[in-house]
């Protein structure tokens, strides 16, 4: 525990020190990044110890203005510390490595970066409502400043604006939540919440407040509107950290509150499952319509949030039906997916950073053929794309597979509701997964494959070896998470048990670990073997059976003699079929002229799909509030007579109301 606190302190101090010595750019970068990396490594030890030994670290008491507050590192905290401790050093390394080209290290970047990391670490060990809220808000504010770090760009400011307001709305709900919990238990300590008595209505109210508050951070459907913009307009390492670590804090909060509340009601589970399903589907179809590389990846974060929410909901429902096996499987799947997603998403965002710096744009329409110029990035991005689409053998497949199994197992229950749940989980996951394949095949294909659509003269450089380090670390982690997944089940199941307490009852048959271990070993071995086979086969094919092959011909374009880059299928046209299918939901803008006449001269097509909920829900809503308030502003008209009149009227009203009428 001490070590963990020292790590937090170290990260904070490094963050404060770095801007102070910003005159010496390199030293400042080393201090900023170094403290984050060393701090994270330092914190990793106690975290792993808690995770694998299962023992909680002793409670530490703080004296705060609102009373005593305790800090505690239990297995749940430790588990959610992993994404932070992975992404914080990796993104720090990345920022530090590219700081020569970019303006990192200047203007308090490291301060907010390290503060964000420290706040997340503090949040995880908070065992008190106030400490939790404090850490939560510091985290949000630090994230806000990181998003607006390039504040000369208007879109970045606008994204930060949306983020902070959304986050503040969420925090308001959380404040209400903790006030509610405190009202029921008479204390702000988590340990007191857990033993307090809640009426059913109170419990549900608390749960829905938590879902709202944390839903903002994870990107639950209508509350996600800040997410794509913020991730897009922030710098790549910041996006990676936000998506990979910060949004996971939302799940942590949600699960933590579930731990504190009585056994979940079925309605909670249904809301989570349906909410997750809609989130996932909406995110993917919108992602397909995006023309900005980072927007696509951002929406994919939302999609994965949907999957995780579905899994949590499935677990909650199983708990309310007293099905310990399914509850355990779904929860293990959700937790594992949290970890897997954060690693993959880190890789994707860093990759997008490398691409957009190499090319100077994030527009998919201007990319293509980068695989030849940036082979390393291409490999990283390919692996990350395959992984995030949930293709075997990569880690995300393992966790999605577990969630699928939870769905399949649910289908064996003889209960219409269970079957409905199974149908939602299976069909939903399959649809989301299918769309994810579509999205990432499109993204990778358009960015790295084909002929380049950008200016030919532009020089594009592969990232430098130092910058490759974070990529290699993350790729190794993808590998580790894949290969080691059968052995990760046990500690993760311990975490899941801690979250579920005995709400689901005790498993009569096998434990989820035993149940899952064999299939997962099979899956991993089998698909790894397949991978090896494919690569071996390809090598053999290249070595021994490629005699006479030639690769200097043009692409076959059905006889057209001079195909060039402009003839390629574009990102807009690729997604057109799907966008058309769902145009009722995503409502794309279509630009361009139709082909007409016998000898058509010029035609173009481009679609654009800003977020529907932003356009059709929040902007009108804010406008409505704004217009609604406008008439009231006439009250401050500047005429003193009437001001005195207000005073007189107030006095009279009060006198009449309270004294005369009484």
């Amino acid at each position, binding site marked *: 525990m001490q070590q963990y606190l020292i790590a937090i302190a170290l990260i904070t101090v490094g963050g404060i020190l770095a801007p102070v010595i910003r005159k010496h750019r390199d030293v400042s970068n080393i201090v900023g990044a170094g403290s984050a990396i060393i701090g994270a490594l330092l914190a990793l030890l106690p975290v792993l110890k808690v995770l694998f030994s299962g023992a909680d670290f002793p409670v530490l008491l703080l004296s705060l*203005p609102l009373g005593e507050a305790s800090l505690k590192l239990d297995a749940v905290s430790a588990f959610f510390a992993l994404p932070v401790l992975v992404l914080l050093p990796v993104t720090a390394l990345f920022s530090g490595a590219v700081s020569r080209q970019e303006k990192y290290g200047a203007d308090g970047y490291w301060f907010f970066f390290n503060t964000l990391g420290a706040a997340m670490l503090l949040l995880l060990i908070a065992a008190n409502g106030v400490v939790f809220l404090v850490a939560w808000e510091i985290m949000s504010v630090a994230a806000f400043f990181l998003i607006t770090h390039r*504040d000369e760009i208007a879109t970045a400011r606008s994204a930060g604006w949306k983020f*902070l307001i959304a986050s*503040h709305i969420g925090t308001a709900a959380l404040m209400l939540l*903790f006030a509610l919990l405190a009202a029921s238990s008479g204390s702000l300590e988590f340990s007191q919440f857990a033993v307090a008595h809640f009426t059913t209505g109170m419990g549900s109210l608390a749960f829905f407040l938590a879902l709202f508050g944390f839903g903002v951070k994870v990107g639950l459907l209508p509350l996600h509107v800040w997410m794509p913009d913020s991730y897009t307009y922030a710098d790549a390492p910041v996006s990676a950290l936000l998506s990979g670590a910060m949004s996971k804090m939302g799940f942590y909060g949600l699960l933590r509150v579930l731990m504190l509340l009585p056994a979940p009601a079925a309605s909670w589970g249904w809301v989570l499952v349906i909410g997750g399903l809609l989130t996932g589907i909406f995110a993917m179809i919108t992602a397909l319509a995006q023309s900005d590389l980072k927007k696509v990846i951002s929406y994919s974060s939302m999609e994965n949030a949907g999957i995780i929410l579905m899994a949590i909901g499935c677990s909650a429902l199983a708990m309310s039906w007293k099905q310990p096996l399914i509850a355990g499987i779904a929860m293990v799947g959700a937790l594992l997916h949290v970890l897997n997603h954060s690693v993959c998403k880190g890789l994707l965002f860093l990759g997008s950073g490398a691409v957009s710096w190499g090319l100077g744009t994030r527009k998919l329409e201007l990319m293509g053929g980068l695989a030849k110029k940036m082979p390393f990035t291409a490999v990283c991005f390919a692996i990350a794309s395959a992984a995030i689409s949930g293709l075997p053998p990569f880690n995300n497949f393992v966790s999605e597979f577990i969630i699928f199994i939870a769905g399949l197992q649910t289908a064996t229950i003889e209960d219409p509701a269970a079957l409905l749940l199974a149908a939602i989980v299976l069909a939903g996951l399959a649809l989301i997964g299918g769309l994810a394949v579509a999205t990432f095949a499109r993204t990778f294909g358009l960015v790295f494959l084909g002929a380049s659509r950008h200016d030919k003269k532009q020089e594009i450089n592969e990232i430098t070896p130092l910058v490759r380090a974070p990529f290699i670390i993350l790729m190794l982690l993808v590998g580790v998470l894949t290969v080691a997944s059968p052995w990760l089940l046990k500690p993760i199941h311990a975490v899941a048990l801690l979250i579920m307490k005995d709400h689901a009852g005790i498993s009569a048959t096998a434990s989820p670990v035993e149940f899952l271990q064999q299939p997962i070993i099979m899956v991993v071995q089998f698909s790894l073997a397949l991978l090896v086979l494919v690569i071996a086969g390809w090598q053999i094919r290249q070595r021994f059976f490629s005699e006479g092959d030639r690769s200097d011909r043009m692409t076959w374009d059905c006889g057209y003699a001079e195909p060039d880059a402009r003839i390629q299928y574009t990102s807009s046209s690729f997604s057109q079929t799907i966008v058309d299918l769902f145009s009722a939901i995503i409502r794309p803008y279509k630009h361009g002229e139709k082909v007409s006449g016998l000898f058509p001269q010029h035609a173009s097509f481009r679609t654009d799909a800003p977020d529907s909920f932003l356009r059709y829900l929040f902007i009108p809503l804010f406008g409505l509030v704004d217009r609604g308030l406008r008439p009231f502003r006439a009250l401050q008209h500047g005429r003193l007579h009437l*001001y005195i009149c207000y005073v007189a009227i107030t006095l009279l009203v009060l*006198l009449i109301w*309270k004294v005369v009428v009484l």
Partner: protein
Amino acid sequence: MTTAYALIIMPVITGIISLFISSERARRNLLVIVAFAHLFISIRLCSGSAGELNGVWLGLDQLGRMFLMITSLLFAGSAIYSTVYLDKHPHFNGPAIAGLRMPANSNAIFAACMQFFLAAMTLSILSMHFGLQWIGIEATTLASTPLIYYHRNKRSLEAAWKYMILCSVGIALALMGVFFLAMTTSSHVQQFTPAGLVLFAGYLKIEWLKVAFIFFLVGYGTKMGLAPMHNWLPDAHSESPSPVSAVLSGALLNCAFLGILRIYKVCAAVPEAASFASEMLIIFGLMSLAVSGIFILRQPDYKRMLAYSSVEHMGILALGVGLGGSAIAAAMLHAIGHSLAKASLFLLSGNILAVYASKKVEDIKGLLKTMPITGALWLTGFLAITGTPPFTTFNSEFAILRVAVQSRSWTVAVLYLLFLLLVFVGMLTSFMHMSLGKEGEKEVDGSAGESIWQVFTPAVFLCVALLLGVYLPDFIRDTINGAAFLLGGKAL
């Protein structure tokens, strides 16, 4: 007891002296010296080393102790700042006006009135007698009106006139309240002080007490800036010189609030009146929050925005006291946090004004680049004033919410959060526009607003606000809790 009198009389005397000092430098130094002497004596008085103060006229209970410290501290900070401010605004030393009109040197008036103002505020805090307190509060109006008119232009004159008339009317109504309060006592009460009346709580006539409370609330509420009597506030705060705005907002409003708290204390001793008074305070608190939310959103003038934010925070104070229980202690804590943050912001707005010579939000861009220190502090102040953790305002706002939820006042809790959110959106938009982004097209020399004394006070105040958010020293905690006990509340 003599210390207390000294505390009130000293600024008066030095104020009169400074009217006759010709040296600009000496006058300014005197102001700072007096401010710090006042601070020093206040600390001695509050720490109890000058003996207990519990007279018929003057007294210092825990409430007074808290407000005295805030006032004195804020004044000292503003005094330091104002020495530089007077330098930076030479063009405001308008032409001499002869005859009955104000004396030639507006800076002399400024220094003198600042000190009178301090004396009046001290009087209103220290006075236990309701009549004496009224005198003190009215005196604050009188002393601060010339300060608001410091800039000698149409706008400041208009603001000063409105302030004068509206506050005087309000305070005249409060005097009615004082008379009515006197009526509540059937037999002759020994002391016309809160403590004296509380002793006879059982004999007080509730009807009259309620009438008196209404008059106090409307009267002092006008001065405190509770909606819908707040209309003078944005004008006066935005037109007065920044150090004055800081004191007006951070200290004066508290003094007026203290006026309401004194009678609230009497009401709290009578159960029926207590619930009535609480209800009133909650209603006015929510109204103030609503009004501030409406006007902060899209507010084009940043000093007015800060002024409306004062209305908001006064609403929170009223709400907190109205909710009772530990929310009263939270409201006290909030008063401290608000004063520190708001004073800092007003002082910083002076820096910005000195450089940009505009109060329009849209004219100011990229503060972080043109004025790095001011810009950073400006954003920090924004976080502090909107109740973002770990600033102390967060603790108090959350504690108030907690009590609202605990007492099952769902409507209050939800409206409270909603209005806070509205304010947050409005302020965020303006602060972002001002601080972030590219510099504007206009060439500005940021160094004019960045000298050490211009950023010293805000920096110190904001640091204190930050520290208090994480650690509340025992003497402050005791004072706050003591004040809450006086008003029938619970410890934080």
